[in-house]
């Protein structure tokens, strides 16, 4: 169990990652959240490919040190929205500049190709760092950490609530799907499919709102007054200070390498 280990098991946490003790897991969640955000803000300003390669290397290193299962994580990293992939593929042909090669009658420019590669590198470096640093925090702990970082309490409550009930609703969804399968429902390209899935959604909404009424009644019965007690205590230790220091140096190094090679 990690120090900031889960008390509520949850689908949301990166599976397997929390059961192994790594230095990433032992670092203070608040430091990890801030580190990931700062990293993202630095990386999107980078232009030179040296610096971007360096950023990608940092991301990869973090993935390995967080002990995330390699295969499924890489799949996550590479799964970009199909529309983004499409846009990246279009870029070489729509950016004005020096013609590099032809595909049929379309002219691809060097600037366009470089721009597309740049966006892909930035996006992947940030996603890797985020999955490794923040994705390994148990969702409940993350909520508490965000609260300590002055995120509005209401928003944290909303997040904790949905994290708690996403699992419950997923189970409910699969139960309804099973019931549909038992009645020989097979999804296809037809109105019947769309209507049935619409009904399924409507049913889930009705049930979840009824459930929320029961929850509210139960919470009031126990004296709920609009406040959750966020009980996780975090200790910023020597280990966290060292992590923050090294991280800041790395970010400065990134910006410097971009400045000198850019």
């Amino acid at each position: 169990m990690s120090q900031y280990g889960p008390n509520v098991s949850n689908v949301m946490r990166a599976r397997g990652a929390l059961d192994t003790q790594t230095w990433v897991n032992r670092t203070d969640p608040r430091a990890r959240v801030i580190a990931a955000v700062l990293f993202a803000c630095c990386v999107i300003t980078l232009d030179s490919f040296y610096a971007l390669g360096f950023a990608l290397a940092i991301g990869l290193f973090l993935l390995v040190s967080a002990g995330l299962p390699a295969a499924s994580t890489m799949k996550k990293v590479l799964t970009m929205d199909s529309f983004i992939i499409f846009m990246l593929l279009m870029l070489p042909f729509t950016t004005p500049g020096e013609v590099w090669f032809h595909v049929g009658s379309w002219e691809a420019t060097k600037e366009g190709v470089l721009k597309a590669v740049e966006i892909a590198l930035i996006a992947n470096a940030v996603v890797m760092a985020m999955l490794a640093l923040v994705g390994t925090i148990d969702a409940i702990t993350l909520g508490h950490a965000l609260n300590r970082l002055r995120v509005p309490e209401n928003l944290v409550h909303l997040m904790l609530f949905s994290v708690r009930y996403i699992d419950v609703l997923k189970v409910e969804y699969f139960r309804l799907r099973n019931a549909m399968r038992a009645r020989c429902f097979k999804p296809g390209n037809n109105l019947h499919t769309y209507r049935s899935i619409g009904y399924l959604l409507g049913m889930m909404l009705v049930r979840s709102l009824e459930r929320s009424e029961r929850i509210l009644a139960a919470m009031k019965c126990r004296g709920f007054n609009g406040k959750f007690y966020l009980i996780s205590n975090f200790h910023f230790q020597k280990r966290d200070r060292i992590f923050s220091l090294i991280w800041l140096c790395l970010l400065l190094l990134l910006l410097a390498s971009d400045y000198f090679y850019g």
Partner: protein
Amino acid sequence: MHVVDGALSNEVVIAGGVLAAAGIGWGLRKMDMEKIPAAGMLTATFFVASLIHVPIGPSSVHLIMNGLAGLLLGWMAFPALFVGLLLQAIFFGYGGITVLGVNTVAIALPAVVMHYICRNGVKSTQKKVAVLWAAVAGGGAIFTTALVVTLALALTGEEFIPAAKLVVLAHIPVILIEGFLCGSAVALIHRVKPELLRDTPSADGSPVHA
């Protein structure tokens, strides 16, 4: 439609962040203690809905359902959909950190717009009218989302415009399907629990009794 880190210019990213923060702040003001369980539950429901894949041609699309979220949540759709996007970004690696603001605006702003346009129609006691307005909300929300993403890309650079135009075109079937699904969902709610469409919080946060 999740924009990734690095694709947009700094100005667009900052503008998106500011707009999203304003929307979330306004939405949170509408969310008092009584509404936290319902809002949390709907957040979770729409998160699960986004995992559902619907067949379309040889491929499939995942649902967004921001129109329906807007009808039920009003301004609270901002914090609710933001939480969904945050969880997706952190645990699934969809989207990114710095573009979270732009992505939130792209999904939640259409929800609020559709709330104001279609809310009264959906409250109708006639099922046909309610379903029709719900379909408008479902399809219109996706269309507006596509427009916001296009605008964000177009403000970043001209080289994105052709791709963005194609994105809007490619979303026409998605618009139709989401509209149809949203209509069917409201048809079911209308039959099973019609008060849900009338008693849910209105945009100004007070319960509406039609």
